[in-house]
């Protein structure tokens, strides 16, 4: 059963498409890497799924999902690290759906927060401010928040950028756990080695869909070359790109 169904989807900013006429579906319980050259519309696609960007054309069908069951990890640069927030505060936000703007962080919930912090190996960092964390520690904290969100669909935007190798390995095992629990995971990634080793499915994007399927069939040199070419063809004004211009 498809968890996310992209139907002739065009997404973009200021009426200029960044993702165009995407037609494919993400199966429930799948673990999918989204890859593509810079400017291929990978992050845009996730924003579309989250709903922070309305499609210019087509639609995204979320089968049995709504925004309630979705967890989204944006690129780290979107978070204001200078904001005076402690690790506990940040992680506890994952309980938002339960506690909302007014709910109480009681002892039971607090122990779940602590468990999530422990699961990502951040014990002892609870009261540190997020500004004092390294890139890797910050990402661990954000994964703890994702754990608390307990979502059936998890969207990760470049989760391993500016993250050290050990943290990457730990976080991959968190992702593997989600996969084993039957959650659907969509991650924008760059590192081919990681994808080949841990992600069964890959969606290759270059504004348009290049290929989507088992990683070994999608992540070929030929496909990636084609994706780069398609994106370079798009380097001009975005609205002249795509099939019409070719």
């Amino acid at each position, binding site marked *: 059963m498809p968890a996310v169904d992209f139907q002739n989807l065009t997404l973009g900013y*200021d009426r200029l498409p960044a993702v165009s006429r995407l037609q494919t579906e993400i199966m429930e319980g799948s673990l999918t890497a989204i890859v593509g050259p810079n400017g291929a519309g990978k992050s845009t696609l996730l924003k579309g799924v989250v709903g922070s960007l309305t499609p210019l054309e087509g639609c995204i069908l979320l089968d049995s999902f709504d925004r309630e069951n979705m967890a989204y990890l944006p690129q780290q640069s*979107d978070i204001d690290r200078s904001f005076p927030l402690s690790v506990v505060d*940040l992680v506890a936000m994952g309980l938002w*759906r339960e506690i909302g703007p007014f709910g109480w962080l009681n002892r039971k919930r607090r122990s779940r927060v602590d468990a999530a912090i422990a699961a990502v190996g951040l014990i002892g960092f609870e009261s540190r401010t997020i500004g004092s964390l390294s890139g890797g520690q910050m990402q661990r904290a954000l994964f703890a928040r994702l754990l608390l969100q307990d979502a059936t669909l998890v969207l990760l935007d470049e989760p391993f950028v500016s993250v050290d190798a050990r943290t990457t390995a730990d976080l991959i095992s968190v992702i593997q756990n989600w996969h084993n629990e039957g959650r659907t995971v969509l991650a924008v990634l760059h590192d081919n080695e990681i994808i080949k080793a841990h992600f069964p499915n890959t969606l290759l994007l270059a504004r348009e869909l290049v290929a989507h399927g088992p990683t070994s069939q999608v992540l070929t040199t030929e496909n990636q070359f084609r994706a780069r070419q398609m994106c370079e063809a798009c380097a001009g004004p975005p609205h002249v790109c795509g099939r019409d211009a070719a």
Partner: protein
Amino acid sequence: MWELFFQPFYDYGFMRRALLGCIAVSIGATPVGVFLMLRRMSLTGDAMACAILPGAAIGYLISGLSLGAMTIGGLIAGMAVALLSGFVSRLTALREDASLAAFYLISLALGVLIVSTRGSNIDLMHVLFGTVLALDDAALILLCTIASVSTLTIAVVFRPLVLECADPNFLRSVSGLSAVTHFTFLALVVLNLVGGFHALGTLMAVGIMILPAAGARFWAVTIGGLILVSIVLAMLSSLIGLLLSFHLSLPSGPAIILVAGVGYALSLGFGSVDGIITNAARRASSKTT
């Protein structure tokens, strides 16, 4: 000591009223200032203050130096500019700060024009620099009401507001409160500026909002700490500023803001968190040991 610090308030009712008014403004406006600073919107406060002017001026035109008319006028003008610039930035590619700048400049020019064609220079001075030494009962009640409403509202929207500042994308992904929070916050900015302008004037009102918040950054690392320190800084500035203006016959609004400025400078130098001189001293002592 007694004469210097307490006699003025003991002897003169207008000094007591001024102090109460300033304390109300300190409690109401500085938490808003802290969030403005944390959202990197410090200059937005400035822009909004100017945007309030034509509303207050029109209120003044209609019914003279009337508290109610000028308050309502200021609120309407401020909200209109906040909403318009918000909408323009959501509908077009123009960023919110740019559209806000456009609207507030228009608004400020309009305000000065209205005041100067119909009023005297003294009226203009009143609107621009406030009359903290001439606060009547109605004005005091208004200031205290605004401080209470503002504090309560901050308490209610605190959690979404923190999220909206720190990680707006996350808030948008988990709830639809983002836009509501943003506009509620802008409304609070306008409300406090309108309150502040009765005491300190449209231009000086931003000072009591931003300067203590900026200074608090050098003393506290948590949001609660920041708010607490900034309120204390604002109250101290009000007290010392009023005393200075009393003893040296200075205009009170600028005196209060200048004291807040000195407070900021001292925090910048000697603050326990990242103060310049504190840091230098720490480096020096760690080298010698």
